[in-house]
């Protein structure tokens, strides 16, 4: 049995990587991937913390729910990215700045 700290270290690492990807990557698809990474980090945390409550599977259930949401989010996100790409001929969020002008 791994101590819970390892999971937490991994989750924190994953989250950090995801966050950095979200912040730094220019391509919107990469940003979406970063978000997936962050969601997965949170899933890992949910499951790891569920170990502390042995007679309950709420953590797992919540993780499953997050996975479903992530799928939907990925689908909607990709659709938006495609539409944005069609309209602006770019998938770089920095170049979509119509409201700023």
């Amino acid at each position, binding site marked *: 049995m791994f101590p819970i700290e390892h999971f937490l270290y991994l989750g924190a690492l994953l989250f950090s990587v995801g*966050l950095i990807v*979200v*912040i*730094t990557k220019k391509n919107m698809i990469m*940003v979406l991937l970063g978000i997936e990474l962050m969601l997965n980090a949170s899933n890992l945390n949910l499951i790891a913390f569920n170990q502390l409550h042995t007679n309950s599977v709420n953590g797992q259930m919540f993780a499953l729910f997050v996975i479903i949401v992530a799928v939907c989010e990925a689908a909607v996100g990709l659709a938006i990215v495609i539409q944005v790409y069609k309209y602006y001929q770019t998938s770089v*969020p*920095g170049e979509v*700045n119509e*409201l*700023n002008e």
Partner: protein
Amino acid sequence: MDIQSYHSSFFLTSLVSVLVIPLISFALSFIISEKYSWIVSFTAPFLLLISAFAAGVVFYYTWNNEPFTIAWHWFTSAGYTFTMGILLNNTSALMLVVVTVISFFVHFYSIGYMAGDTGIRRYFAMLGFFTFSMLGIILSDNLLAIFFFWELVGFSSYMLIGHWNEKPAAADAAKRAFIINRVGDIGFLIGLMILWTHTGTLNLVELGSLSGSWQTAGSLCIFCGVVGKSAQFPLFTWLPDAMEGPTPVSALIHAATMVAAGVFLLSRAHFIFPPNVLDIVAITGSITALAGALFALVQFDIKKILAYSTISQLGFMVIALGVGAPEAALLHLFTHAFFKACLFLAAGSLIHSLHQAQHQSHTAFDVQDVRNLGGLHKKLPFTFIIFILSGSALAGLPFFTGFLSKDAILTAIMNWKGSGFSWKWMIFGCAFIVSFMTVLYTFRMIWVVFRGPEKSTAQLSISEPPAVMRIPMALLAAASIWIVVSWNPFDFVGWVFAGLHPGKYFHSGIISIFSALWILFALLIAYLTKNKSIRSSMLLNGFYLPKIYHVLIEIPALQIARFTTQADVKWIDGFIHSAAYAQLIIAHVAGWFDRVIIDGMVDVTAQVSRGIGSFTRSFQSGKIQLYIFWAAFAIIIFIIWTLL
């Protein structure tokens, strides 16, 4: 005639028709259309004939009878009723006849003289209007009404002098005549103001309560009006200029009637003149008489000779008024009206005949200039005889009316001057000198025109004017014979004189004889000096008075007028503009203050808030990743802060 006859409707109808018929003649000329303008030259003389007959009726009833008065309310103001009234006594009855008869003759004569003139309707209209206004002066019973017609006479004179208004000289002369008359009229008006203020009435019958210095001032002012209208020194300059008008007009207005209005007024208002003013009147009269005679002696224009002689004769009448003998003045006015009208008509017929002849032979010279004329007694015998008859009356030869009326004036002056030696002798002497010179210039005029060799007219075939012009001339010439005035050719106290002033009877046979001899002597001198002529440009130009007026009054007046316009533009408008500019400058300063200081403060506030705004705005770049970065950064800071 008893007093009742005045109220007969026949008399009143005649009286009204004398006055109204010329006015109808005036109005008729406007009703008749341009196309049928020839009708006017028949209706107008005909109407005047009726008027003259009516005047005869009025005269028949009034002469040597009680004065007749009638008044209509004109308007009421300030508790006083101004009236338009008629005061008919011997003087006005006589004048009534003179004016209507001469006016009729002139109308009649004009049929021939003005035939073919384009403005014939206007001409007869204004003749009718003039007659109406002149009759108004004669009949009016109060000074305001006299003033009313007095100015109207000036107006019709203006219209008639300027009848040929396309000639600049005529238009100019008309303007001058009116303005100079107006100078006199203003004096008259001031006289009216004085009388009104100090007597409260303007009615001739009621006036008389005036005394003291106001009487002097008032009567002097009224005399100013006389000086203007009767062309006395120094306002006589308009009369020679007025000769620009048609000659019949000169006969009617500028010889017989209008210029006599002043004399008539003086005789009518004689009783308000104090002795010291009468002296001034006499002196003015003698200066005018002398100056007029001198000017007449050197003129070349036949109408101007006659004009200056009119001035001189008017001066004679005014002397008579000044010496307190209005009846003598009126007698001279009466005789002068006929013979001077006749002379003018004769001059007119001369001009007419020569113009006709010129027209046929296409030659051009000034027909009015006597230097161009000569020897016309063969070609124009009728005109010559008329000239001789009326000229003799003007010169005052015995057996002519002029002799008698001049005699009356000389006698009056002699009685007035008294036996003691004083300045009054100068006026007496002056009168004799003037009558001497009258003979000279009359003789010279007739001699130059009708005797001697023919000059410019030698080649022309000249014919006498038509009968329509000859008849009035003949009748007027006949009125120069002594019988018209008195049965005795050496006694001026005939029916006219006695009627004008019953009771007063100064007769001095010595004067008659002396004056007759004096006139014959003058005739002799005139014959002997017939080929000599005096040249004096000072006299030719009337003492340069027109020029003096031009330099001393017209030019300065125009300069003042220009100056006031400048004042308007430069000072008043300049002040307004500079006030406006000052306001503009203040407005600009205020605007600058507004913009820079007050708006500046507002702007600073705005700038500050804008700076803050753009600083905070810089966070909202629209980049999602940046937002996320800031969110994460904030969370990290927050975590670090809580942990510490």
